[in-house]
């Protein structure tokens, strides 16, 4: 049974992406008791799946390393992975949270040696790589995963593979009898940091993501560019493995669109500018946009990319994509609105700069909270001691999400400090 020692002075952080991690660490490093509940088997969230950050083009794993070190060293922080908050009742200063913990089938004895993965045979789509590659039924989600513990896919439980994994483990870390647990504990304040998910590109029907192999999403392109990713960093076409010579980026793929996401997802312009730097200089890059939203000093980066000879910008929302059946090239149809030029442009690969959608569906928040039209949490006083952090509050870039999360931690601390003052 997972034990959690928590009181009304404890801060519960829901979601262990960069916002939740930040809120949790900042509060813990201010001396507060923090319980962090993360749905995935590891913390770090979506930034762990990014190859580089804009505009510095530095590596997200660099900051992840520091944050994970902070987490490992801090006794105030208790991380519960593979867990979801199913209910929160009470009021600021006195909440009771219900948390469902899924079985990992691997206990803390695990040394991440990898013997179990070698032993099992079943393979599954690798969600860490957005399904671009395969992983084993016993797996470490990614190399830097924290906790550094393997996971058994529930689909292998009850199969020979499960037993093989267990037999292969020399440190008795595999426990096939592990069951789902439901626990309850107290908290004085809650930081809600459930983040975002990429908009489902299948819904953007004119772009044929579901029909054209060489139309991919920006999050997939990010994995492809990563040398530690499924293609070893090679930018190749899904249809034939050919190295790409021309790439088109389609902005607002799902964003600023009443048929999809009403809001501007803020990050996609910068993300595409960043991704435009991934291919070699010989690769022709076209960015189809409505407005390039490079905020504040990101303007420098926009100008830098704009100055690149191989990058061109077309002010146009692409109308449709049709596959050239002979060569698999997606052909983009539309009108360049700067002076009205009609185009039918073929590219080797098309990247849809998909928007950010709040992870939690409007209807299924397990806590009473004020949500706006777009599904983001409003900074409403009625939310009591529940504070949104990061992308659960708006489409934010990493920097702003972290900034926002630090503020959320502050709000939570105010609540538990008030509890401490009255109880103490």
């Amino acid at each position, binding site marked *: 049974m997972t034990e959690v020692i928590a009181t009304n002075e404890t801060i519960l952080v829901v979601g262990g992406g960069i916002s939740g991690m930040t809120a949790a660490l900042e509060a813990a490093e201010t001396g507060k008791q923090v319980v962090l509940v993360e749905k995935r088997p590891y913390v770090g969230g979506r930034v762990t799946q990014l190859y580089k950050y804009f505009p510095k083009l*530095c590596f997200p794993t660099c900051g992840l390393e520091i944050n994970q*070190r902070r987490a490992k*060293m801090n006794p105030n922080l208790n991380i519960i992975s593979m867990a979801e908050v199913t209910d929160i009742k009470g009021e600021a200063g006195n909440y009771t949270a219900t948390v469902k913990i899924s079985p990992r089938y691997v206990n803390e004895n695990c040394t991440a040696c990898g013997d179990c993965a070698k032993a099992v045979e079943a393979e599954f789509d690798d969600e860490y790589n957005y399904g671009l590659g395969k992983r084993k039924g016993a797996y470490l989600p990614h190399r830097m995963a924290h906790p550094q513990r393997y996971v058994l896919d529930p689909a292998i439980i009850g199969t020979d593979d499960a037993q093989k994994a267990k037999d292969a483990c*020399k440190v008795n870390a595999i426990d096939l009898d592990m069951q789902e647990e439901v626990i309850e504990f107290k908290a004085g304040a809650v930081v809600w940091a459930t983040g975002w998910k990429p908009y489902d590109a299948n819904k953007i029907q004119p772009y044929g993501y579901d029909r054209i192999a060489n139309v991919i999403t920006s999050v997939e392109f990010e994995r492809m560019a990563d040398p530690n990713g499924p293609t070893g960093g090679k930018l190749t076409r899904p249809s034939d493995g050919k190295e790409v010579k021309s790439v088109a980026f389609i902005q607002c793929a799902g964003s600023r669109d009443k048929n999809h996401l009403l809001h*501007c997802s803020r990050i996609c312009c910068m993300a595409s500018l960043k991704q435009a730097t991934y291919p070699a200089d010989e690769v022709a890059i076209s960015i189809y946009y409505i407005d390039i939203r490079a905020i504040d000093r990101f303007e420098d980066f926009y100008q830098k990319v704009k100055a690149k000879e191989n990058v061109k910008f077309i002010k146009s929302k692409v109308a449709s994509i049709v596959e050239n059946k002979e060569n698999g090239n997606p052909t983009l149809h539309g009108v360049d609105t700067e002076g009205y030029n009609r185009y039918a442009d073929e590219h080797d690969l098309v990247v849809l700069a998909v928007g950010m959608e709040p992870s939690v569906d409007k209807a299924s928040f397990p806590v009473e909270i004020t949500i706006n039209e777009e599904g983001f949490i409003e*900074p409403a006083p009625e939310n009591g001691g529940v504070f949104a952090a990061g992308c659960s509050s708006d489409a934010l870039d990493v920097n702003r999400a972290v900034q926002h999360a630090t503020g959320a931690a502050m709000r939570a601390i105010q609540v538990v400090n008030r509890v401490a003052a009255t109880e103490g």
Partner: protein
Amino acid sequence: MADEKKFAGYVCSGCGLGERLDAGQLETTATRDGKMQSCKQHEMLCSAEGVQMIKDDIANDGVTHVMIAACSRRAKVEAFNFTDVALTRANLREGVIWVRPDTDENKETTQEMADDYIRMACAELKSMAKPSASGEQSLNKNILVVGGGITGMTAAIEAAAAGYPVHLVEKSGTLGGAVGSYYKVIPTRSPYDAPAENPIPALREAIEADGNITVHLNSTLTKTDGAPGRFSVDIATESGTTETVSIGAIIQASGWKPYDANQLPEFAYGKSQDVVTNHELEALAVAASGGPIKRPSDGKEVKSVCFIQNAGQCSDKDGHLTYFAGVTDLVSIKQAMYFKELNGECDTTILFDNLRTPGAGGEDFYRAGQNAMVTFSKGIASEVVPGDSLTVKFEDKILNEQTEMACDLVVLATGMEPNSGPDPYAQLMVDEAEDEEEKAKAQAILENAPPSILNLQYRQGTDLPHLKNGFTDSHFICFPYETRRTGIYSAGPVRRPMDIQQARDDATGAALKAIQAAENASLGRAAHPRSGDLSFPSFRKEGCTQCKRCTVECPFGAINEDEEGYPMYNESRCRRCGTCMGACPVRVISFENYSVETVNQQIKNVEIPEEWDEKPRILVLACENDAYPALDQAAQAGVEINPWARVIPVRCLGSVSLSWVTDALNNGYDGIVMMGCRRDDDYQCHFVRGSAMAAERMSKVGDTLDTLNLEPERVILHEVAITDVERAPQLINDMAETVEKIGLSPFKF
């Protein structure tokens, strides 16, 4: 008992270590060579049972120093977190067996590697002490907020709400700053469909009612002395009185100033009174007091207005701002809606290139502006011709024509400039300029430096360092509050151009960092990125030559000088990077658990085989933030590393003492590889210049090599990123090849 040191070694045989290595021999190495008083083996040291064994020894046998020979120091951290002892880890798993093939022919060299790592860990442990806070700290909960605009007011309210007393210092006679004089603000709550009420009056009331906040109006800081937890700040009023307050941590919210539109003659600013900036328009809207907005020249009610976006910004023209104010498109929508509200049938056109209204609120507000019949035109204005009716000449990018329109009033959406103090590194920028143009730019910044805001009594200048364009932002995407002056956090548009909502979020975050800094200073704990580290540099005064390198090179301005030029450390300003240690030519600076000696002892305790053994030794000094994790991941991925390599993690390449290199060469190492972070403008070093400094220092290694008559290729420094999982091992293996090519070092005794 308390002073008695007791060294205990623990060798793990789990994870295949037992099969691949001779554990008995390792134990012997630990006790015989490593001089451990005891050494125990365990088949899985990280298990509850293994950990308990160590705990028991600490509790019952008075063990004070623990050497764990198992996996990497990055693994099983929680299990091996013994805070009451000095601790070292010999990395036998990721460092040895995972990077060496499991074959008979490699058995000997693999064992040698493991034995060496045990010797190194033991030697390190011998010269280490358990770090502990000096005990001189006490908790000072006072927070100083500099600047009484919306950011400062918010920071004050938030810190006070957490139970921390605040001194809020404002230069002018009222709180409210720039926003205080606005008619309305960009909406911050859904449905984002109309300009919102100005929040300043409510904030003023809240501050007035807050017993925890002391407001100092008409006041500036004339002196800020001390360090987090013990700042002593002189607050002087205009009238000449000075109050000294004791402060735990500081938030600088000194805000922004509007761009000087006199640099935009093409838009007739200064030539026509009816050309105003967005900032000036707020005053016109307020002056209208609910009636129609009137134009300045003749008081005529404005019937048509044109907004020119990006006036003097996002442009590399002389005198223009290269960056974007982030908020000015939203501001123009807001202001266009003023006209719709106050001036009835008023035509409003916004000429923009890229309309930057991001996020949920931004896009909603754009639609609201359109719905209110604000005309948006993708157009680039080239000229405003003054006259009774102003003529705006522009290129309509959609209709693809040069055109013009007439209007009563032109509003220039100009940018924001930060209200920061002088950059402490302005002189350095001049000195290090790579070309004349850059030098001239740097010189101009130095000469036009603004007056100080904080008046820090720091060896390295009076104010927060600038990142770019005068903004005092953090350099790090993941860590927006990573400051180069510990315990001092900037917030709001002095840090980065931002809107009101972001400024308020930022203020709240900065308030957290401030109370955190105050709390940690009281416990002697380091701030980010070595959060919680209790180790602290001290120096041997008798050895010090007052060369001042440490005080100059400290990236955080942590070290002052006394009158004689000796360094004066400030524990709570220090970030524990060891740059001072690397800087010190006479090796008098050390931390309890990280010093010239701890590394030197590791270097010396590697067994250097005789020349005829043909077993070279390569020393690898790897940054613990990036290169070392990259090597760990390489091990995980089964990438081979040459068996001659011996890797020592360092806090930062900036902490690398030149003596380690010379000593290693003198001891017969055949090659030295140093791995630090990226060091250009987009540097990755959390200690700012550590990697760059190392590169600079190591450029002098050539002389040493010359003197020793050694080939220059034997010492090499690389920039390595955490993602260099293949490359980092390759760099080591490359050195092995180099050594093979040029031959072994002659310095083997």
